[in-house]
């Protein structure tokens, strides 16, 4: 027996504003939060732009221990989780801790801190036999990826299954998907689910430079992230977090919670093709979409909006366009499909959760967020990408899709509270 899964809270830490309200305002206004990198000196890099969060952990009420010792991506996750739990109205003190789970994703985890200390212990890359006496005694917390889920679990006293998911750039979708399974299959009643990454550091920027995946449009950062536009030239790095409270539908109803929407399907497949490459066919992503529709017993024509991966690389945009056409058929041409990466950049593992949060807000506001900077159509990408301006629309069922290094192709289906067919 599978149980229905409700979303009862969301929290967001995104470039352009902290909190779900600021995040939605940015999307609804079609503003971009991409700019020249300020978190470190990017001189010498090919891509020197990013979507950064203006984030002060003290201002958001984190205690001294978290402010001083927790990595930035963990601070993001805690702030987003607190917002989500607050909105859900859950009294964490009265929850059954063994039935409360955590499922959080991150693609690169503590690498920013790891790089920072690497520079110290290696004397700026001079030594292979690194000097351990110069390392932070708490460096193991950056080394262990599960610090993310553990730290958030401790905040809320969760004692059920606590997982950190790391499937590259689909980590956020997959973390929400694992949480969906955890609740629908009865292993927990509440799951704090989402993802966080703070990858804006020299090593991460340099490794994407090396494969020319990121945009070199350093002179015009505000317009550098151009998904589906013929003049796109790569993605713009981002950072941030989004966390959702997922809950057994009956559990949420019994306590009189405000149910924002439901997660009604999740699937992931591997493309078994290339670690970074995508085919122009989109077969595996289409299969993931088809599977979510099967789970919800929905006809493809019921999809009202597709939140695209839309990274702004040529191969991604045509891959994804092909996948959506394959799954939705002629209906694809009538379905708006936009990429919020045009505004908040690509925060690697976090972005999938941020995009799911955007879908929750889109359902709530009945508005489709736009693809900012979209001006010049590309003949290879001929769907309705919602250029530049948000669009009011009746929304019941929306899809969020993503692709990740390693070949991961994932899809999450969300359904508004009025749109159920089961």
């Amino acid at each position: 027996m599978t149980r229905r899964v409700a979303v009862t809270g969301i929290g967001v830490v995104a470039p352009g504003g902290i909190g779900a309200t600021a995040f939605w305002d940015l999307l609804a206004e079609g503003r971009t939060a991409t700019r020249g990198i300020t978190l470190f000196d990017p001189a010498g890099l090919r891509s020197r732009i990013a979507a950064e969060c203006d984030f002060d952990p003290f201002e958001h009420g984190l205690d001294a221990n978290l402010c001083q010792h927790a990595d930035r991506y963990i601070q993001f996750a805690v702030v987003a989780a607190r917002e989500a739990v607050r909105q859900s109205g859950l009294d964490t003190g009265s929850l059954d801790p063994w039935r409360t789970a955590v499922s959080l994703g991150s693609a690169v985890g503590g690498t920013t801190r790891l790089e920072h200390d690497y520079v110290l212990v290696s004397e700026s890359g001079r030594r292979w036999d690194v000097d351990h006496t110069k390392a932070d005694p708490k460096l193991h917390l950056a080394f262990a990826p599960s610090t993310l889920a553990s730290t958030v679990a401790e905040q809320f006293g969760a004692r059920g299954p606590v997982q950190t998911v790391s499937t590259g750039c689909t980590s956020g979708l997959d973390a929400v998907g694992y949480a969906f399974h955890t609740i629908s299959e009865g292993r927990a009643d509440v799951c704090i689910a989402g993802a966080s990454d703070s990858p804006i550091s020299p090593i991460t920027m340099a490794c994407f430079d090396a494969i020319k995946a990121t945009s070199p449009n350093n002179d015009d950062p505000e317009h550098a992230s151009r998904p589906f536009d013929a003049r796109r030239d790569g993605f713009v790095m981002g950072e941030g977090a989004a966390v959702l409270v997922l809950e057994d539908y009956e559990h949420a109803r019994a306590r009189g919670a405000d149910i924002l929407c439901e997660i009604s399907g999740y699937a992931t497949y591997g493309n078994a093709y290339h670690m970074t490459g995508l085919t122009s066919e989109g077969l595996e992503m289409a299969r993931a979409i088809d599977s979510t529709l099967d789970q919800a017993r929905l006809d493809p024509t019921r999809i009202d909006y597709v939140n695209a991966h839309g990274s702004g690389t040529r191969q991604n945009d045509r891959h994804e366009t092909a996948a959506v056409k394959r799954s939705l058929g002629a209906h694809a041409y009538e379905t708006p499909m936009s990429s919020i990466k045009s505004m908040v950049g690509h925060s690697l593992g976090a972005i999938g959760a941020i995009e799911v949060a955007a879908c929750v807000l889109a359902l709530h506001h009945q508005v489709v967020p736009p693809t900012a900077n979209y001006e010049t159509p590309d003949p290879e990408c001929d769907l309705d990408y919602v250029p530049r301006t948000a669009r009011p629309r009746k929304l019941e069922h929306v899809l969020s899709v993503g692709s990740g290094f390693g070949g991961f192709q994932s899809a999450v289906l969300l359904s508004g509270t009025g749109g159920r067919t089961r």
Partner: protein
Amino acid sequence: MSKRRSGRAAVTGIGVVAPNGLSTDAYWKSVSEGLGVLDLITREGCEHLPLRVAGEVRSFDPAALVEDRFLVQTDRFSHFAMAAAALALDDAGLGGEPADPYSVGVVTAAGSGGGEFGQRELQKLWGQGSKFVGPYQSIAWFYAASTGQISIRGGLKGPCGVVASDEAGGLDSLAHAARAVRRGTDVMVVGAAEAPLAPYSMVCQLGYPELSTLDDPDRAYRPFTEKACGFVPAEGGALLVVEDEDRARERGVPVRGVVAGHAATFTGTSRWAESREGLAHAITGALDEAGVAPEEIDVVFADALGVPEADRAEALAIADALGAHGTRVPVTAPKTGFGRAYCGAPVLDTVAALLAMEHGLVPPTPNVFDVCHDLDLVTSHARPAELRTALVLSRGLMGSNAALVVRRGDDSAR
């Protein structure tokens, strides 16, 4: 998909790359004989570190098992994982490309990533400049590298996943695969292999308060004794092939065991006294899912962290969950002979459990004598016993607890 479905996740293939054996047979020989292979670390650049003893995988020749085009773009942890996956698929009789690529998925657990590769690229970046960072850093260092490469190498397009976890994630990955099989995927390749012994990775581990820094390989890792002084890290791991039991029987391949039950809990980082309740809760949950009574557990593969407070909590958790049976059931921890390979450790324990059931032999706990807890810990020599059901326990340094029940294959047949 096949038509008949048992809903039971059968293990049909095993692949091992461990400090005490580079094949399943070699691993079992070492484990059953209680061979200790912990030794001083020989990896370049580690000589000066205050962590001298580990379980190293030696004489592993990745080029003999993995093609060059994969080797250049991957770290040692992925070499281990790809080699173990290929061994497991061969063992299961699934060596070629699958007829339906979507019918086979991959899930791995990872707790340390591609540290040696990452350190090399960090050295290029900071020593020489950003233009010297190679094109494979973006796909070698991150936790998803092994799942992605196994999927690509085998043409496996089924559900693919990665739990980036502490030790207990190794058991979580097995449960993840078993659930994927129950949801309808024919076959899952699952497990974990780690390579945490590069210099910088070792520096990163020095802060773990549970780490043993004794430099005598025979005395560094002695859980459940008064001499317990922490755990010894290791590299390597194992991958398994898990598939629907009826499908395995249709194919006519031996079922080496069944993943029958799992549960996971969390009780806080390094709060070992509290892990008693969390581990007991996980054991009870795993028994419930498996439909197994406490008295039916024939052997327990312990987490055996080697920290006195944690050892006590584990001994008490076994008693809490299994009742009086908990003090009578044979308990073992073969990993004291070769160390804890993070997420790989409980997968290697699961392999040992499956092989113990096959051979009717509880392997011993090397280097451990004078047990100071109320447990029937098997020491010195393997003990013959009729084994039908095994319980594998794991706790992670960040606070996870997990329990897995595995049953002997032939008993699970209808």
